[in-house]
């Protein structure tokens, strides 16, 4: 039984026919839509490398069946920068050395974007660490990651204030 779905990824509409309902959103992105930025780590929802935003919420794309995201709006790491202008979270990860090997980084960054949008952690380092616990970094760059998220949260809050002033 094949399933036709339609979804938006980073602003572009995609109509996809799934021959098999077993395809995860992660595999759809990487293998059908040629967007390998989203990484496959554990493939079991334990490492966070596959984190993307679905309708603005961060989720594990490895545990999300593609057939269930019909009509959804997806944002992946490929959708954050505007041309050569990096997203503030991307900039902060570079400035704070928030990675070593880089494999978990797309998931870390997408998770951080989700965390900041949720607004429950503010710029409190303890709450940021807790809010980022779904993203494992085996190089253990956690100190830089937490500081990068804190810095990005501050910068984005200041930008918001400037815009609304």
């Amino acid at each position, binding site marked *: *039984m094949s*399933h036709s779905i339609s979804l938006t990824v980073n602003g572009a509409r995609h109509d996809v026919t799934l021959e*098999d*309902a*077993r395809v*995860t959103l992660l595999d759809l992105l990487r293998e059908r839509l040629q967007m390998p930025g989203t990484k496959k780590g554990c*493939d*079991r*929802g334990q490492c*966070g490398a596959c*984190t993307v935003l679905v309708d603005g*919420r*961060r*989720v*594990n794309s490895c*545990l*999300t*069946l593609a*057939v*269930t995201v019909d009509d959804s709006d997806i944002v992946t790491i490929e959708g954050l920068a505007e041309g050569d202008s990096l997203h503030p979270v991307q900039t902060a990860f570079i400035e704070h050395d928030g990675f070593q090997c880089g494999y978990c980084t797309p998931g870390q960054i997408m*998770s951080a974007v*989700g*965390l900041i949008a*949720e607004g*429950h952690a503010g710029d*409190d380092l*303890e*709450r940021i*660490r*807790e*809010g*980022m*616990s*779904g*993203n494992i970094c085996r190089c253990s760059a956690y100190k830089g990651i937490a500081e990068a998220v804190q810095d990005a949260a501050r910068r984005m809050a200041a930008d918001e204030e400037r815009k609304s002033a």
Partner: protein
Amino acid sequence: MRAFDYTRPASIEEAVAAWTPGAAYLGGGTNLVDLMKTGAMGPAKLIDLTCLPGLDAIEVKGDGSTRIGALVRNSDLAHNRDFAARFPMVAEAILAGASAQLRNAATVGGNLVQHTRCPFFQDGISACNRRDPGIGCDAIGGDTGSMAVLGWSQSCIATHPSDFAVPLAALDAVIEIAGPNGSREVPMAEFHRLPGDTPEKETALEPGEIVTAIRLPAEAAAFAAHSRYLKLRERTSFAFALVSAAAALVIEDGRIAAARLALGAVAAKPWRVAGAEALMVGEPPSPELFARAATAAMEGAMPSGDNAHKIELARRTAARALARAAAGTPAEMPALPASVFGDPAHA
């Protein structure tokens, strides 16, 4: 993963009608899809419930009860300000479970029907009576650190992994169910089942039935000023409980007027003992009283392997949760919910 048919019904009636033996209902998928990957589960058909209308609201009803639709996502419930103010230990328990990504996807109904994290069940290969009735139990004699110390049987020694279910049990939640034979309600105390000789029957749900809502009675909100969830785990975040406790008190004129205590990760269901609660009523809060209540709550505990330490750990966790509850619900959610760390004012 085994191949399956997929269907997305538009109403509860359609969903129930779509059910056939071997089918499974799909919510957020955070547990089911994982188990389908390991091979522990292989449904022939997935019935996606996430588009059913009317099941994603949190409402206070005319009788003062609070009704949580089964499709409310865990994170949305925990961060709902009104809900968290009325039922702080429920919010704290949810935020102590899983990761933000999983809480964003997981539904509250799915949380209740999630399966044990017993590794011998999950791997799809080991002998497991819960997965393949009658085949045996490889957990017995295995690594039993996460296994039960209460209510287990020779068929199964697994625990229920939900944090959310523990305060729900303490607060006398009621589970609303729809199915082929109509709608009914089951008290939380009867929803999860102890293994006995039929560990494969994990809940009170009959074949084809769906959890549609969780209701907290009006009197559950009376505990808001003194209720805490405390969870011991191998790391501070994103880990299942070794043991946990939900403790809630009503304190009037320096004495306990009402008490609730439920323990998590010690059995195949949240563990609640009426006598442990009753002995606190009328007494002033004290460490000695809470130790006695905790001991009463763990009465009859027996190691199911090399896990006798869990009995003492659970006693201490229950007593400490009661002491935290007596100290008062914190004005804001702790940075590390339900943790022994980072909460000095309520240590």
